[in-house]
């Protein structure tokens, strides 16, 4: 299949970017990233600069791949990462627009690669539990109700790719932050630091310059892991309780 690609090219964070068009011959069984690999080999053969894009596992579980394809983060398929998106979902001769995730908090490093360190700093502010390392505990030492465990696990499936920010008209990071707060706060292990966690993570999220959540739900619609906006409501509840009913304040 023959495809026309309109790809965003940008040399660095401080320079402006523009679209360039390429034609590529792809196979419908290829993944989207494999199709880009073909493009890059073509560009290298022509001694032109290949398109920079991020990838790691190519199994849809690491959250490294990104890019906005025809206006959808990770492309038009529901619940699918870019690496798991296959070319059979596109038509022969189609023009595909490929852009980086766009948000001030995710500055472009090069072409389609953006710096998502803002997410790392949100995690650093509270996305962990403080326990001594050592022998792993017996799995059943702390009884947890199955439904609760499943709900926490649903939140924990967030791969932190940033598609929620990319999809949100406000570039809000609430879905990511709420998933990360939720999966720990719902578990007995995370409950110990729950109040401080929600205060710190929301505070860090705000200081990173993401927009505020308007409950548009574009994040849930585009999330490759289909994380629910129920997590956002949960975090709002926990944030109100933490601010109004506890003695605690954000750590910084």
């Amino acid at each position, binding site marked *: 299949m023959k495809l026309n690609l*309109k790809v965003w090219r940008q040399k660095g964070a401080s320079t402006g*970017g523009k*679209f360039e068009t390429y034609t590529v011959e792809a196979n419908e069984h290829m993944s989207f990233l494999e199709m880009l690999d073909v493009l890059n080999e073509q560009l290298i053969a022509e001694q032109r600069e290949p398109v920079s894009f991020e990838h790691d596992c190519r199994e849809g579980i690491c959250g490294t791949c990104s890019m*906005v394809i*025809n*206006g*959808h983060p990770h492309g038009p398929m529901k619940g699918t990462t870019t690496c798991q998106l296959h070319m059979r979902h596109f038509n022969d001769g189609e023009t595909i*627009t490929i*852009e980086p995730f*766009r*948000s*001030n*908090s995710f500055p*472009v490093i090069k072409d389609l690669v953006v710096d998502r360190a803002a997410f790392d700093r949100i995690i650093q502010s509270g996305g962990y539990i403080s326990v001594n390392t050592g022998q792993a505990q017996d799995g059943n030492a702390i009884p947890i109700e199955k439904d609760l465990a499943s709900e926490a696990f649903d939140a924990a499936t967030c791969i932190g790719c940033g598609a929620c920010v990319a*999809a949100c*008209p*406000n*570039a*809000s990071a*609430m879905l990511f932050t709420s998933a990360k707060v939720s999966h720990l706060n719902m578990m007995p292990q995370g409950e110990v630091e729950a109040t401080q966690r929600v205060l710190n993570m*929301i*505070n860090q*999220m*705000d200081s990173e*310059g*993401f*927009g*505020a*959540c*308007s*409950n*548009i*739900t*574009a994040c*849930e*619609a*585009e999330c490759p892991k289909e994380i629910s*906006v*129920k997590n*956002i*409501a*949960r*975090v*709002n*509840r*926990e*944030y*109100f309780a933490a*601010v*109004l009913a506890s003695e605690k*304040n*954000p750590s910084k």
Partner: protein
Amino acid sequence: MNWFVRFLTSSIGKKLIMSLTGLFLCLFLVVHLAGNLQLLLDDGGEAFNIYAYIMTHNPLIKAVSYGTYFFIILHAIQGIILAIQNRKARKSKYSVTVTRTTGTNSFAARQMALLGSLILVFIGIHMGDFWWKMKSGQTSMEKYDSFQFEVQNLYEKVDATFANEWIVLFYVISMIGLSFHLLHGFQSAFQTLGLNHSKYTPFIKGLGKGFAIIVPALFALIPIYYMFIK
């Protein structure tokens, strides 16, 4: 920073203000509508004029009305601030924009600020049409046997205003705008408050849809009735 100021200026705090003021204004809409529906009575405006007199002379209602003005202004200013800040969070725009949503009307959700601005302009013009004319005494006085005081004839002003097709058209368009604003806003207010529950949320969303359609439709019915039916 003081903890309470920090709370109200946090992203969630700002949304809380939008949510609470929005829900209060939904309540105001119901009361306002209930009063205005008296305009559909075939009594020459007696019930409506007496109602208008009570609404402007009861000290408790007066106090609530000042609260309403304050909440309208707060909701509008906070909404404008949020819209500007949210726009600024993405300086370089996408060349292709498609907004898919899961639980709300996508057009309404994206255009809340635009719809809100239309409603704000409407409120200004609407108050100029009636509130100001009443305050500045541009109305004639009327005495009804059923009521002890002489009352201002606001009904006459309504009748005259809704004889103008441009005003009627503007009122109807504004109510369509309000309908979309409520279509997203009503259920969104509950989500912001943290009320997302598998038992209650389907009810809230259904109620929100009904509210967003019925309330503006009944408001719009009044100018349409005066123009075409009465």
